[in-house]
């Protein structure tokens, strides 16, 4: 009996030391995925409950953070993703690769033409731009830009092919840049202000 308790205690302590510290990061990403605090909280909580129940399955020494994100992503995709999977509103082929660069007054006297643009993009714009990304793109963009996961890690977390991760990230980046450029214009950015 003591042995069993010792095992249970060890498990709990391991979990508290290895898994729980990632809560902040999980919540951060959950917020961007669900777009509201209540759902984000529930999602993180569900992820930890599931992770604890499956803690035996976790390979100690491997990447606990990625493992937790995989569990959370899985729950998100199955239970939280917007039920109406609206097709892409934008025709991607119309957007240039690395959209913002094409909009900058490059070649002007300004040595850093992008600085003017950055000055016209506010925190709230970035938040809105991220939230308008379709779920599939938002997920990989957040995992990459915010959490710094590698292509391979994102592929493992989302159960997508490496190539799919790369192309979604690429298109997500384009969409995000296009969206942000529109905010910059709204905020008074003038393309040829050099």
């Amino acid at each position, binding site marked *: 009996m003591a042995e069993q*308790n010792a095992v249970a205690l060890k498990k709990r302590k391991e979990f508290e030391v290895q898994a729980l510290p990632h809560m902040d990061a999980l919540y951060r990403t959950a917020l961007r995925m669900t777009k509201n605090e209540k759902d984000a909280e529930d999602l993180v909580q569900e992820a930890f409950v599931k992770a604890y129940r499956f803690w035996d399955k976790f390979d100690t020494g491997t990447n606990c953070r990625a493992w937790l994100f995989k569990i959370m992503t899985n729950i998100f995709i199955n239970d939280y993703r917007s039920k109406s999977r609206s097709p892409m509103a934008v025709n991607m082929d119309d957007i240039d690769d690395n959209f913002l660069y094409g909009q900058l007054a490059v070649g002007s006297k300004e040595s850093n033409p992008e600085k003017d643009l950055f000055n016209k993009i506010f925190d709230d714009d970035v938040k809105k731009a991220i939230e308008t990304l379709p779920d599939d793109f938002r997920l990989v963009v957040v995992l990459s830009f915010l959490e710094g996961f590698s292509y391979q890690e994102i592929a493992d977390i989302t159960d997508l092919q490496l190539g799919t991760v790369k192309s979604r990230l690429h298109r997500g980046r384009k969409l995000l*840049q296009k969206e942000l450029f529109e905010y910059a214009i709204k905020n008074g950015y003038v393309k040829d202000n050099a």
Partner: protein
Amino acid sequence: MMMDCQQAFALLQDILDKEASQIDEKEVRAHLKKCGHCFERFRVEESIQEFLNEKIKTSFAVEEKSDKLESMRLDIMGHLDEIDAECQESKKTTFGSPFKIFLSAAALVLLASIWSLSTGFFSHQEYYIPLEQAHWAAAENSSVYTQGFDKAEYLGIIEQNFNYNINSSFDGYSFVGAKKEQIMGNDVEHLIFPKDDDCISIFITSADTFVIPDNIKATMIKNSNQEIYDHNCRGCRLIFHKVGSLMIITASTNKEIELADFIPGHLTI
């Protein structure tokens, strides 16, 4: 062979995502040194990416209030407790008849804790988690309690302040160190009694300020003629023993120890 503009551009995304191989990165950088057009292009793209990464982090920072995260952490701990309790319960049912009495006692605790789920379960968590955590921390790192510890002097102070005599050893557990801690706003003397890999904590505090709320009493087993509350839900067992104006709490992860016997053995009040 030197990389051309097109080849360099093909690697732009990999470079922005920090996924390019060392060799590719080196070749691209070599090209950028020679090609002003690509240099400017990469510089701006990297600058944009850096801006995005940074903005994505800061634009949500406001919502991550620390008290919010702390209450989430407590909620999660509560869920883990429920799972732990479930697991323990299912293990106990596999034991034979000598454990039947314990079984029914455990069932009572479980019933009470299920009932309390709807009536302030989390205040319950908040109540015993700090004690368990203090016990675990001490068991993990006892040197904090033993370093430079003057046992004779300490025993004298405790006797004087609390009129409480501590047996230095009991059942192979010996008193090796202590320190004063703040637990849930109370001054608590935390004494540790290690034995092999095992460790018992004894907390001594004032019963006037350290009061067990009624809803928590309801989840514990009460000894009929003494104020002893036995709390045995998680990986740690706590026994709350009110003696006169003192509250003595014993904590152990080894549930085979009869803590209820253990405490009175130390009492000479």
